[in-house]
């Protein structure tokens, strides 16, 4: 409420102030204007209003202050209340605090006691700490020692590790060697298998050979048997022949018989002396008996021999070969003996026949002499007996001849046996030689097969059965081609570079003027010479530019100089550095000239010349006095011009 009143009061004040101020403004503005009475009234009014305002204002202030005072009192009360509360609180707090303080003091005491104890403990601990530190130092030392030991141990470990690594590498090497060796082993085993197979084949071949040999021997035995049979057959054939011959001889014998019978008849007719005949006959008989015995003995021997021969088996032949040989020799001897006997017997037969003829002659003589009838039966008997004996002898003869033939056959047989044995021996030797040859050939075969296999391993092949193929476009061929091409390209580049170097060396000595002539060849041979060409072009263009500039400059200078000459009347030439010679257009003589020198400070100074000596006045006036070179020069020009025109 008060505040609202305040605000209304304030707003009224403001409006009042504003109202006052408005008339003040016009007052200020129209300071010099008339109407002072109005003004005074206005002024009074305003003063009254002011006073009213002040009063209102003061009232307002008073109210405000009242309010404030009230507020203050309230606040004071509140504050006092609060303060009392606070005081009570603080008193309580104080009591609390005091209690707490006492407690804390007690605690402090306890803590102090504890602190003392703790201090004691601290000291003890410190002592213990010192001891421990000493221990620590000792332990540190031991630690260091142990570290050193560890270090050494580490080194040993490292060295051992290196050793281990080396050993592992060795093991690996050994493993690889082992694997290689196992590979070799396998290879060798396979070879061994091959060899074993070959051995088996060879043994089979041997067995077959042996079988063949046995069959061969069987065949040989068969051959022998067949030959023996052949021999027997030949013997039989021979026997048959003899029998035939005998048979052929039979009619002759019959004829003889007839003749003998006729002789007997003739003898019967005549009778002769008995005693002589008997004695002779007895003698003949004895002789005959002896002959018979020997013949029987011979026959028995031969028969025994034959029996011995025919009784032997085939398998004992080889063993008895030598015996047979000796026996054959004996037999030969016996044969010879028998031949001799036969001859003897034949001779005896001849003798007998002769005796018989003699007897016949005697008988004939007896017959012629006597007429014997007494003797005839005995004689005839004896004759018959004699004839029988004769027949017997003849048959014995024949038998002997047969035996002889048999003997000869036996001998042939023995000879055949010998030859067969020799053949067998010879065949055996041949077999042994062939065996040896076969073994040798087998060994050679093995060696060749080994070599062939080795070559097969290395990649050789039999062109009759095998062919080696590869693709035409294979990597090796392609690589070789590329290499060739590279080499070729490199060679070409090398020749090109050599030519370039040579030309560069010769081109550099000549000079730039020949650059154009060389340029085309350079541009042909070198690709990077483009830069050089560009640079040259640039150079040429810049040179041209330079030349043109020079020409232009010269022209311009010339123009400028002529213009200067024409306009100023002086030709300015630079003779030496900083020296300028001026020649007037109206000069009387050619060498009338003025010489100016540029000083170090930039000012121009006239130098002494012959011509300048004649212009002493003008020099003094214009240069010394007026200090103006253009005036001097123009004066000179005018002077010369006037001289010229007058003259």
């Amino acid at each position: 409420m008060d505040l609202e009143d305040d605000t209304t009061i304030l707003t009224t004040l403001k409006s009042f102030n504003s109202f006052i101020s408005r008339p003040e403004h016009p007052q200020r503005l129209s300071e010099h204007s008339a109407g002072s009475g109005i003004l005074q009234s206005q002024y009074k009014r305003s003063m009254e209003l002011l006073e009213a305002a002040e009063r209102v204002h003061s009232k307002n202030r008073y109210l405000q202050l009242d309010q404030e005072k009230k507020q203050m009192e309230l606040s004071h009360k509140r504050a006092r209340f609060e303060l009392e509360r606070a005081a009570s609180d603080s008193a309580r707090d104080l009591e609390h605090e005091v209690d707490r303080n006492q407690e804390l003091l007690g605690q402090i005491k306890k803590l102090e006691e504890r602190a003392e104890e703790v201090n004691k403990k601290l000291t003890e601990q410190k002592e213990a700490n010192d001891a421990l530190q000493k221990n620590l130092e000792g332990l540190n030392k031991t630690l260091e020692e142990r570290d050193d030991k560890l270090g050494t141990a580490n080194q040993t470990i490292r060295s051992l590790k290196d050793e281990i690594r080396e050993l592992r590498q060795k093991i690996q090497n050994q493993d690889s060697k082992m694997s290689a060796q196992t590979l070799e082993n396998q290879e060798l085993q396979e070879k061994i298998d091959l060899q074993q197979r070959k051995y088996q084949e060879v043994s089979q071949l041997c067995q077959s050979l042996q079988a063949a040999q046995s069959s061969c021997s069987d065949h040989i035995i068969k051959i022998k048997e067949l030959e023996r049979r052949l021999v027997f057959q030949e013997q039989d054939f021979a026997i048959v022949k003899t029998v035939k011959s005998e048979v052929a001889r039979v009619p002759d014998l019959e004829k003889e018989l007839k003749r003998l019978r006729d002789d007997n008849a003739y003898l019967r007719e005549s009778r002769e002396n008995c005693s002589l005949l008997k004695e002779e006959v007895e003698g003949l008989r004895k002789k005959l008996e002896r002959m018979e015995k020997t013949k029987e003995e011979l026959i028995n021997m031969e028969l025994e021999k034959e029996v011995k021969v025919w009784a032997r088996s085939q398998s004992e032949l080889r063993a008895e070969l030598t015996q047979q040989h000796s026996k054959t020799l004996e037999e030969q001897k016996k044969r010879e003996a028998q031949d001799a006997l036969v001859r003897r017997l034949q001779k005896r037969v001849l003798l007998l026949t002769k005796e018989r003829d003699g007897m016949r002659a005697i008988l004939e003589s007896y017959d012629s002499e006597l007429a014997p009838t007494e003797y005839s039966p005995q004689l005839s008997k004896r004759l018959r007996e004699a004839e029988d004996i004769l027949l017997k002898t003849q048959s014995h003869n024949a038998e002997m001849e047969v035996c002889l033939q048999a003997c000869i056959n036996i001998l042939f047989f023995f000879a055949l046996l010998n030859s067969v044995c020799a053949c067998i021996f010879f065949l055996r030797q041949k077999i042994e030689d062939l065996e040896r040859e076969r073994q040798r050939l087998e060994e050679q075969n093995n060696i060749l097969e080994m070599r062939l296999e080795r070559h097969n391993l290395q990649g050789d092949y039999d062109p009759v059965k095998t062919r080696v193929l590869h693709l035409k476009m294979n990597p090796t061929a392609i690589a070789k081609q590329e290499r060739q091409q590279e080499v070729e390209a490199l060679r070409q580049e090398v020749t090109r570079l050599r030519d370039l170097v040579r030309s560069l060396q010769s081109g550099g000595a000549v000079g730039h003027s020949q650059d154009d002539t060389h340029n085309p060849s350079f541009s042909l041979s070198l690709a990077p010479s483009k830069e050089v060409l560009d640079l040259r072009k640039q150079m040429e263009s810049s040179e041209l530019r330079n030349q043109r500039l020079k020409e232009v400059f010269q022209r311009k200078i010339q123009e400028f100089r002529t213009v200067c000459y024409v306009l100023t009347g002086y030709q300015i030439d630079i003779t030496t550095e900083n020296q300028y010679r001026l020649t007037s257009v109206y000069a009387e003589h050619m060498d009338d000239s003025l010489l100016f020198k540029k000083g170090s400070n930039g000012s121009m100074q006239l130098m002494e010349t012959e011509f300048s000596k004649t212009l002493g006045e003008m020099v003094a006036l214009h240069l010394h006095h007026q200090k103006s070179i253009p005036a001097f020069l123009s004066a000179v020009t005018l002077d010369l011009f006037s001289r010229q025109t007058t003259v």
Partner: protein
Amino acid sequence: MTSTLKGITLKGSAELVAEFFSFGINSILYQRGIYPPETFTRVTHYDLSLLLTTDPKLKSYLTNVVSQLKEWLFECTVQKLVLVITCLETNEVLERWQFDIECDKSAKESSAPREKSIKTIQHEIRSVIRQITATVTFLPLLETPCAFDLLVYTDKDLVVPDKWEESGPQTIDQPEEVRLHSFTTSIHKVNSMVAYKKTESA
């Protein structure tokens, strides 16, 4: 496909062997550094991490050779495949990887597939490829720039196809030879070996 459980046919065997050669040749080229290692990319095959080239010219060359080889394997007319590494400067052969192929020709007449598990074959191929990688330990370094070539030994009566020509055997003189493992698909048997020029021991 050959990877059926039924067995290996001639065609399947030819494919397996051709595939082995493709991977094997790539491995050799990477190991011996004939081509820079950054031109190879890793693939997984045979349960191994293998490298194949990304160079397009090389790829097309290998594809040509391997496809022709597959045909020849099917006809059983190929005897050997040889990878020859030549030094470009001196033109001499430094290494020779030789793969002998034995083909069972009776598989041509009878078309019955043979009993052999793919796993076994892959295991055998794996061991060969691992050995090829292991050869790095003993093969001499190839210090000069080298190029390679693939030679095929075929029967004499074969018709030479377009783009193929005859060549020499390109053997090394006085080589060191090392035999590697072999593998067989029961129709084709591949024996591997490497021959290299003996380095002059300093």
